[in-house]
């Protein structure tokens, strides 16, 4: 078992902190043999994918495939058919992650001829089919893995894989039963030596391809509890769901999926704000987290949260400023790139009406630089009339910040021209 590489794939967004990325890169630097290198590449690819860094993820998967392909042919030449089958399975998995369904399927069928008695091969078959969006094939392969497993930890891994595939074909009853079996077993005395070793090593990294029993145990417990919690939450068993999510955090306190879920289920705004902040510190690029947060904004405490709040309020200029700073630090991040595109707003900017609404003024503020020369000339010739709200040294028109040149009566509607945009405010001039 120790020598095995266990593939444990996760459908939900996964934790992918910079620390974890660094750990995996260190793992790769130390890796010498085929399985270590392959495991490291697959892990890095999965982390990159979770961070929505698609190009970098594909590069890792491509390297993983090349490693596996080379290994399978060397093994074949050396008459080591077990090695050959194992390497072929991983070549198929890498191809699946690259989206090459036909090649992946053919390689998996090749393995089935040689190693239909090998539970790990069936597990990899199931993983590849899930990646490719064929959950019913994954269920069938996972059942074969469960049927041929012998070691308890292996069995738990394969039961988890089967449960995952079953969820995807809406067989949640059997999936929940399996996940209860898996989580109960993993927390039982039967796994006490692994629990103690995990605690001694302070192991908490969650890999998609875990090498060694301790790493596999930690990853599996994390994923199985997350899945079970999600099933509980889905059927309205909120208390049971919270308990499972908290158990995940006992294993690692910065699990972004558990933190997001607990924020979603939080009893009050203060708790929700704290949990969201912790989740964004763990992985600011998780699309699942971003989606959840945009539905229930809280007081922002991280840069990404600030960018999202600006986006949700239509404050695109301010959002762009925050996102541009983040992109300097993470230039390859697809999540940031996507948000940056969103912050560009609509391509065509319309001129406001004579008594402009908040939406019209905000659209002009965000898109001022994209006005055509003809629109600018028209704008220069236009006057507008609005009420101005002055609060200390801050003035707003319809909620949009403005900097006003000239004197005016704050108690009467102001007639003005719009000169430009500066920072997060429109520059206006009192019309004479």
């Amino acid at each position, binding site marked *: 078992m120790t020598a095995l590489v266990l593939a444990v794939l996760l459908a939900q967004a996964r934790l992918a902190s910079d620390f974890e990325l660094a750990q995996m890169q260190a793992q790769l630097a130390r890796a010498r043999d085929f399985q270590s290198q392959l495991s490291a590449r697959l892990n890095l690819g999965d982390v990159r994918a979770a961070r929505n860094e698609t190009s970098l993820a594909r590069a890792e998967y491509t390297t993983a495939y090349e490693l596996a*392909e080379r290994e399978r*042919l060397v093994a*074949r030449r050396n008459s*080591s*058919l077990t090695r*050959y089958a194992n390497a072929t399975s991983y070549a198929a998995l890498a191809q699946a992650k690259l989206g090459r369904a036909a090649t992946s*399927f*053919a390689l998996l069928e090749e393995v089935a001829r040689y190693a239909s008695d090998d539970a790990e091969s069936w597990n990899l078959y199931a993983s590849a089919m899930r990646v490719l969006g064929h959950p019913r094939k994954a269920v069938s392969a996972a059942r074969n893995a469960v049927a041929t497993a012998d070691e308890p930890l292996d069995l738990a891994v394969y039961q988890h894989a089967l449960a995952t595939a079953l969820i995807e074909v809406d067989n949640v009853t059997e999936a929940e039963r399996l996940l209860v079996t898996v989580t109960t077993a993993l927390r039982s005395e039967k796994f006490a030596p692994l629990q103690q070793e995990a605690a001694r090593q302070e192991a908490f990294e969650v890999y998609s391809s875990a090498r060694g029993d301790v790493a596999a145990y930690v990853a599996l417990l994390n994923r199985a509890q997350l899945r079970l919690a999600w099933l509980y939450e889905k059927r309205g068993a909120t208390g049971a769901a919270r308990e499972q999510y908290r158990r995940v955090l006992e294993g690692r306190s910065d699990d972004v999926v558990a933190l997001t879920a607990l924020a979603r289920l939080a009893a009050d705004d203060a708790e929700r704000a704290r949990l969201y902040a912790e989740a964004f510190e763990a992985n600011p690029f998780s699309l699942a987290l971003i989606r959840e947060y945009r539905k229930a904004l809280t007081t922002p405490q991280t840069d990404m949260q600030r960018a999202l709040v600006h986006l949700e309020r239509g404050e695109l200029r301010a959002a762009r400023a925050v996102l541009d700073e983040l992109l300097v630090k993470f230039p390859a991040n697809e999540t940031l790139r996507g948000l940056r595109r969103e912050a560009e707003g609509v391509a065509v900017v319309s001129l406001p009406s004579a008594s402009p609404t908040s939406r019209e003024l905000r659209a002009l503020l965000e898109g001022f630089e994209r006005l055509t020369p003809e629109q600018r000339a028209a704008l220069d010739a236009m006057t507008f009339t609005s009420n101005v709200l002055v609060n200390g040294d801050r003035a707003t028109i319809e909620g949009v910040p403005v900097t006003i040149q000239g004197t005016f009566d704050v108690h009467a509607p102001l007639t003005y021209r719009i000169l430009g945009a500066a920072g997060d405010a429109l520059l206006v001039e009192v019309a004479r």
Partner: protein
Amino acid sequence: MTWKRRAWLQPASPGGGRAEATPYVWLALGVLLQFSAFGQVLTNTSRGVVVAHDRRMELVGGWTVDGVQNATMIVAGGDRVVVLDALHNEAVVVELANGRSKRMKTAETPIDAAFVNGRLYILARDARLLNDMPLQADMLEEANGKLYAYSRVTGLLHEIGGRTFRLKPFAADLELDGTTAYLTYPREARVRTVDLTSGVIGEVAVGAVPVDLAFAGGGTALSARILAVADPSAKRVWLTESTQSTAAAVGRGFLRGVLGLGLFGDRASQFPTGVDRVETKGRLWIAYDSSSGTLYHFDRKQSRVLARNLAPHAFALTENGVAWWNGTSVAEKRLR
């Protein structure tokens, strides 16, 4: 992709030696073929060679019709041919005489098919169905108008509409010859036989990792079947005389053992990375290496490469030779 691979190859051929002499170059060629060689299947029919590729089906010199997205298997009957797409759960059946075709959705993972007494049977492995009948199996074979299905996981060999034989699981290949079934067991280095009449099970030790088998002669009232067994680990095709059924052996007064002759004697292997598929038609013998996509023609003394970079089901024996899909057209080589 090709360019990148070649760039990677340069440092692996120090000294500018012949590319094919270095394992790295050879390996890289293997990598390249994987991207393009699947989704092509070919078979010989009563009307000629039929190939499925690139969403098309063609009878060489005859009709062309729309096929499936990713052809994984092709099976010919007397007057029809069916191509399966196990990935996308689809099948197209074509009448050989006129090219009239019928497309159908199948249950999950149509992995194999057979025409028996004019009826088409499709085995949907992951739905565990044979047409509409519940059945867990991976392989289908027909003999004497009867259909048999074997499950690698359960080890059960079902005669459809008949009895069930309990065998060891995890066989790689099933072949039928009259009333005997032959199964290869790679891990155990065994070929097991089942007398489908009496139910008696026998076994012979063959090579190191026997994966695929075909019939290479014998099988008369006075002689046992000669099996050609592909063994990629030994990099040989073994010729093995199968164990007689108990009834036949007792009748003849002795029990035949195993010849176990590796072809080509003790000379260096003729199959550099071994072969794992073998097909025969009379004295025509071909073998295939899935790892490199290489197709060989061989006899007892020698082998020679017929083609490289072929998909696992993109070749077939014809009446006088062998045909294969070379990526753009059907190539045929006369061997008699």
